[in-house]
């Protein structure tokens, strides 16, 4: 489940090139376990997303790394140094907060300069770096403005510049796009991605939006009730979800519950050969893995079934069908849009697309 290296921290940082290592971290607030034994490595230059529902512990993990909370147990290391024992202001980590947290009494320029000023950077260097950071986020024309005069998207950029100007080894982003409206969110999403490529800083991004996670990340770490459910690249986590929860949380899927008996998998009316040990089994079958079988023929590696179309939802490029393939057994089918479909139809899917998942 976890991407943790089995090595000791020192060896791990040398051998794997991991920038940040989280070792068996747990966090308890009162009587509730918010995080349970989390182990996770983040490679230098990586864009890693902590994905999860609200209450999954993703923000808590971020706050532990930033230093706003102390882990109940476990250790956090960065670049071969113990991180969790340092106060937040001594960590080479910067955060972009959910509501931006810009200082209302300071201009945009002074907000961005804040981190450099408190570390007594020479004044000449400050003005150059602030200028550069503001140019990077295209906010150089607003240097003199107060944050309250800026739109949400502009405040977002300033918050980004204020963090990046310190050249952190690791940038933490706590749902930075959630306060923006849909269009702006899409635009900032692509800007964020190209910015990260450009400057090569490691990003740890927190979101509850699986689409956002898929679009931005090199790897996605899915959290569920304070534990890591799966850590993998977006393509892998979508194509090969390890658990039923992952399969349902990331994209849409059909969960087929059935059993394997003497080399045959049976889920309701669907049956296909599968050489695995006997017992109950759950399969995830993506709606787009199912297609219409126009000529009635099927390969030996495919499963064919008859289904009655009960509902058709038009979605522009695709259509989502709700198909009843047996009494009370429904499957969702995503087809390229091609006009209304009604009544009984033959459908087919490849056995390889029925991914066996854990509960």
């Amino acid at each position: 489940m976890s991407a943790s290296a089995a090595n000791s921290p020192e060896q791990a940082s040398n051998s794997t090139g991991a920038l940040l290592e989280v070792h068996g971290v747990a966090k308890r607030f009162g009587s509730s376990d918010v995080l349970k034994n989390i182990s996770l490595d983040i490679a230098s230059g990586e864009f890693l997303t902590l994905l999860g529902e609200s209450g999954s512990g993703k923000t808590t993990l971020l706050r532990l790394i930033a230093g706003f909370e102390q882990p109940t147990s476990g250790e956090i290391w960065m670049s071969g140094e113990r991180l969790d024992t340092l106060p937040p202001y001594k960590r080479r980590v910067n955060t972009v907060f959910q509501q931006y947290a810009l200082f209302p009494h300071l201009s945009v320029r002074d907000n961005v300069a804040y981190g450099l000023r408190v570390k007594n950077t020479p004044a000449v260097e400050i003005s150059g770096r602030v200028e550069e950071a503001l140019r990077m986020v295209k906010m150089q024309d607003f240097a003199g403005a107060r944050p309250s005069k800026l739109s949400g998207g502009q405040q977002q950029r300033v918050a980004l510049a204020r963090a990046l100007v310190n050249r952190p080894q690791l940038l933490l982003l706590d749902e930075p796009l959630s306060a923006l409206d849909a269009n702006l969110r899409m635009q900032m999403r692509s800007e964020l991605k190209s910015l990260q490529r450009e400057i090569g800083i490691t990003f740890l991004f927190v979101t509850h939006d699986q689409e956002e996670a898929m679009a931005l990340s090199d790897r996605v770490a899915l959290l569920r009730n304070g534990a890591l459910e799966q850590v993998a690249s977006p393509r892998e986590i979508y194509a090969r979800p390890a658990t039923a929860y992952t399969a349902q949380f990331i994209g849409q899927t059909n969960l087929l519950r059935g059993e394997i008996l003497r080399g045959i998998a049976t889920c309701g009316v669907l049956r296909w050969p599968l050489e695995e040990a006997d017992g109950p089994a759950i399969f995830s079958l993506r709606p787009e893995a199912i297609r219409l079988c126009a000529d009635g023929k099927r390969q030996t590696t495919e499963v064919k079934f008859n289904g009655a179309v009960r509902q058709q939802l038009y979605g522009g490029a695709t259509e989502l069908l709700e198909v009843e393939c047996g009494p009370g057994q429904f499957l969702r089918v995503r087809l390229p849009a091609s006009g209304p479909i009604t009544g009984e139809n033959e459908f087919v899917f490849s056995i390889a697309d029925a991914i066996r998942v854990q509960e």
Partner: protein
Amino acid sequence: MYSRAYKSLVSVPPLLWVALFLLLPYVLMFAHSFWAVQQGVIVHHWNLNNYKTLFAKPLYVEVLFRTMRIAASVTCCSILLGYPLAYFLSFHARARKELLYQLVIVPLWVSYLVRGYAWKTILGSDGVLNGFLQYLHITHEPVAFLLYSPFAVVLMLTHIYTPFVFLPIYAALEHIPRPLVEASHDLGANSFQTFFRVILPLSMPGLLAGATFAFLLTLGDFLAPLLVGGPSGTMIANVVQSLFGAAFDWPLGAAISVFILMLTISLLFLSEILEKRWAYK
């Protein structure tokens, strides 16, 4: 909308009240300050002599300066006590916050006079403090300057006005979004830097409101000097009181009152301008 009768019904009484008990007294006071007293009678003889006396007589100037000095001391002491208290309550008290807050507020319900007499009992020659000092053999005879001195006035008024200073500062601190404090730490600022660069600037409006309370309330106070001030602790309000009373020089008393009123109004204006300047968002 509302009928004419209803509108006048709700607006006339308060307007009458203001005219009768606020405007009229002010106008009378203002007029008196330009009149004079001849052979024990107030004569409506317009002149500026009262104002000249106020600034020419060393006695009045001295009392005026002492009053401002005491007001400034009370303001400083209340801030020095009230700010750290408010800061502690707002940022570090956690579970005990409500209890401590109530403990700060409770003295406000106790009568001003009771608290004044309490200080008299504490500071007097055979008071609690002197008894304690002698018991410990720190002093051998009662320390006289404790009571009937400007020191006693500052002490008593600081005690009375600290909650007034505490409240607006506490409200301002409570309004500072906590992510701003975290952002400051995140950007590399330690607790001192965070306090002076983020928390203090953002609490300035509250600090200013508290300071204005303490300064202006002290400026017009006459009970504290009466109870614990003695001759060396006399303040301007006591002078006004005696001019209106025993001395029977209403015109001079009115002139001093007008002067204090102007001073108060300008300070309120100044504080409002500064508060607006320091109010963000």
